[in-house]
């Protein structure tokens, strides 16, 4: 069977992202989990580039790998959880969690196995470029954009209020 370059890149990126996602769940130390999650985010950004969402890929790396994961690392370092052994949950609960997740996977795969959807063409388009996205954001979606700025402001105030020491 002939595999074109697109499929090869997709396969490599997918394998790396699945392995690192499993690493997030199963690694003992929280710092290893964070580093695995950063790798997952980079591979997802690679998928975005493959799907013609170039600007979204850049924003994804800046927001997730640059800001959110640094916040996670900062909190973990602050709490000194590095060597903390997680208290053992009862084993059957762990198995129940794994089996539930696996069952959900099987159900969703079975439901969508025979869905008839079109193929993606390798041809590129300019949907994901910043000119096009900016036009869409500031013409069609300008009200949600402003609402999201209010959401950010209230989240910032909320974080400060929650984090403040009580007297």
């Amino acid at each position, binding site marked *: 069977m002939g595999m074109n370059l697109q*499929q090869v890149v*997709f396969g490599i990126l997918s394998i790396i*992202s*699945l392995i690192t*996602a499993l690493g*997030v*769940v199963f690694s003992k130390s*929280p710092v290893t*989990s964070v580093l695995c*999650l950063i790798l*997952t*985010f980079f591979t*997802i950004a690679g*998928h975005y580039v493959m*799907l*013609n*969402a170039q600007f*979204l890929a850049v924003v994804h790396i800046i927001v*997730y790998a640059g*800001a*959110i994961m640094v*916040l*996670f690392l900062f909190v*973990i370092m*602050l*709490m000194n959880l590095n060597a903390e052994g*997680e*208290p053992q*949950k009862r084993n059957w609960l762990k198995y*129940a*969690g*794994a089996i539930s*997740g*696996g069952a*959900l*996977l099987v159900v*969703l*795969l079975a439901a*969508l196995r025979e*869905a008839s*959807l*079109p*193929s*993606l063409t*390798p*041809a590129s388009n300019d*949907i*994901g470029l910043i000119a*096009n*996205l900016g036009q*869409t*954001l500031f013409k*069609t979606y300008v009200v949600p954009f402003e609402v*999201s700025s209010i959401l950010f402001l209230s*989240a910032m105030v*909320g*974080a*400060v209020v*929650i*984090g403040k020491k009580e007297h």
Partner: protein
Amino acid sequence: MPVQYYIFLSIALFCIGVMGVLMRRNAIIIFMCVELMLNAVNLLLVAFSKMWADAGRVDAAGAQIFVFFIMVVAAAEVAVGLAIIVMVYRNSQSVDVNIMNRLKN
């Protein structure tokens, strides 16, 4: 390349996130698994955006704008959630989610 490949990858990432939320007790790890689930959905939205762009729709960029808004909500959620986790740690010296049982009393 069939768009199903991306659907299956997103389902797998989402289910790994669900598994992590159910299996782990460390609140920070649970939080990271929620981020993983949000990203699986984002990947699916971008794949559908590409599918609609291939079909010649001019409004296919709407899905990518939606991904922007999900990122905004995720960032706000992380800020508030980590503040809550830091407060829980400060009060109980632990990030074990079972500690939350004490809210009952």
